[in-house]
């Protein structure tokens, strides 16, 4: 067995051991049972949550919100990035602003969005869109700007028109970067969507956690948190694979 596999095993073993340790300490009364439920109870609560709390339907709802946000991100973010690249003076004026936007705590505006769009799916989708927009624009711009000069020279040596130069050289060369940007935007969107679902107690998975917390269903709540963490890990991994599949040849 390779050292790497052994290491992986050690990592997982540590986690399992920690769970057992927590279980033991709880049963011994060392840790307060009112703030940490028994790991065994949490595991037992999992199937119950799936059935009673319609986890699958909630997962579907959150996914739908993420899907809408991603469509908006692609439809708005990529063209904006292209425009910033096309018009140099606009790029010089606005690029640092978009950079600042990327660092800004956009999700803090959720009360504002609540007022504008009401307590609805639209609010959640719009926050996801707003949170993920900056990386899409920036990565699209970066990809276009980073097209190797020699490739543009090849285009010029074959006397391509401006439109041909864009569609046949700049855009294909920028595509890997565009996908990276879309993935980043998607992840930001997902994180903020689930977060806002929790905060405004509306929507899919995020709302589930809030509800279980308000019901003081401790094992259920911990179980739901596990679900959400698992779902976001899955999302992260799948998008990574898709991104890698989409750009194998650079």
């Amino acid at each position, binding site marked *: 067995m390779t*050292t790497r596999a052994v*290491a992986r095993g050690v990592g997982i073993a540590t986690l399992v051991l920690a769970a057992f340790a927590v279980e033991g300490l709880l049963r011994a009364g060392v840790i307060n049972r009112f*703030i940490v439920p028994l790991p065994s109870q949490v595991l037992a609560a999992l199937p119950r949550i799936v059935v009673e709390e319609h986890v699958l339907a909630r997962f579907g709802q959150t996914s739908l919100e993420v899907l809408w946000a991603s469509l908006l991100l692609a439809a708005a973010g990529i063209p904006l990035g292209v425009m910033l690249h096309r018009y140099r003076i606009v790029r010089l*004026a606005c690029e640092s602003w978009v950079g*600042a936007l990327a660092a800004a705590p956009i999700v*803090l505006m959720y009360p504002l969005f609540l007022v504008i769009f009401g307590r609805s799916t639209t609010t959640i989708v719009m926050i996801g869109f707003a949170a993920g927009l900056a990386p899409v624009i920036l990565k699209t711009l970066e990809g276009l700007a980073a097209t190797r000069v020699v490739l543009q020279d090849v285009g010029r040596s074959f006397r391509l028109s401006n439109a041909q130069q864009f569609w046949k050289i700049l855009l294909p060369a920028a595509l890997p970067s565009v996908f990276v940007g879309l993935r980043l935007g998607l992840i930001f969107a997902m994180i903020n969507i689930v977060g806002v679902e929790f905060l405004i107690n509306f929507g899919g998975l995020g709302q589930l956690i809030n509800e279980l917390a308000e019901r003081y269903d401790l094992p259920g709540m911990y179980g739901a948190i596990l679900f959400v963490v698992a779902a976001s890990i899955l999302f992260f991994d799948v998008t990574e694979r898709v991104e890698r599949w989409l750009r194998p040849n650079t």
Partner: protein
Amino acid sequence: MAAAEHMSAHVRWLRIAIVAFVLIGWEALAMSGLLFRDVVPSLSAIVRALARALASGEFYGNLAVTLGEVGAALAIGGAAGLAAGIALGANRFLSWAYEPFLYYLGPTPKIIFFPVMIMWFGVASGSKIAMGTLSCFFPIVISAAAAMREIDPVLIRVGRSFRASPWQMATRIYLPAMRAPIVNGVRLGLGVAIIGTLLAETKLSNRGMGYLVIQAYATFDMPRMYALLIVLFVLSIGANALIGRLGLPHAPVQRS
């Protein structure tokens, strides 16, 4: 030279034009009554609310609370993240064992852990600081581990060939070499610490900037909400830019 100056003058004018356009458009929207009146309050109302806030002791009291919480979160999360990151970066076995967890846990919404934090740390500042700490730990540990690994091995060999002591290696080789990526990680960490702390304040608190924002929402005092959000954004972006300046290193030698 003249061409470049010409361009930057144009850029400045374009920026002014864009800002002016947005402000005028906003005021027009406010006046038109197209949207429900208070959703887009007039600029003067916002400015007045801003002035009132900046003149009130209550505002600064809450601002201090938030700053304290964010500062504590960054200090604890930063220290833990740096220590863990350096350990992971230095030891490949540890990295293979534990870094995947951190890598995959990173992009998850941390706010969902807030109910747990409340139970463990209470409803006062403790749970907010915990939220901020949890948020900023991840980007810092990941960037510290990467920074350790990215140190050009040649530099380490140079240090060893001159028989530098471990302390000398740490302070004269490792730390300077890692400065840029770690500063970047801290910049990210600050961003998410602010978000985590403030969101926690909006959810359950009776102090802090997040609490003020939710209060404005609950009382439908829109100009005040805009004013508070403007302050928060200016502070966040400013802090981010400041830390970014700290991280400007000398250009590394290009290896062809």
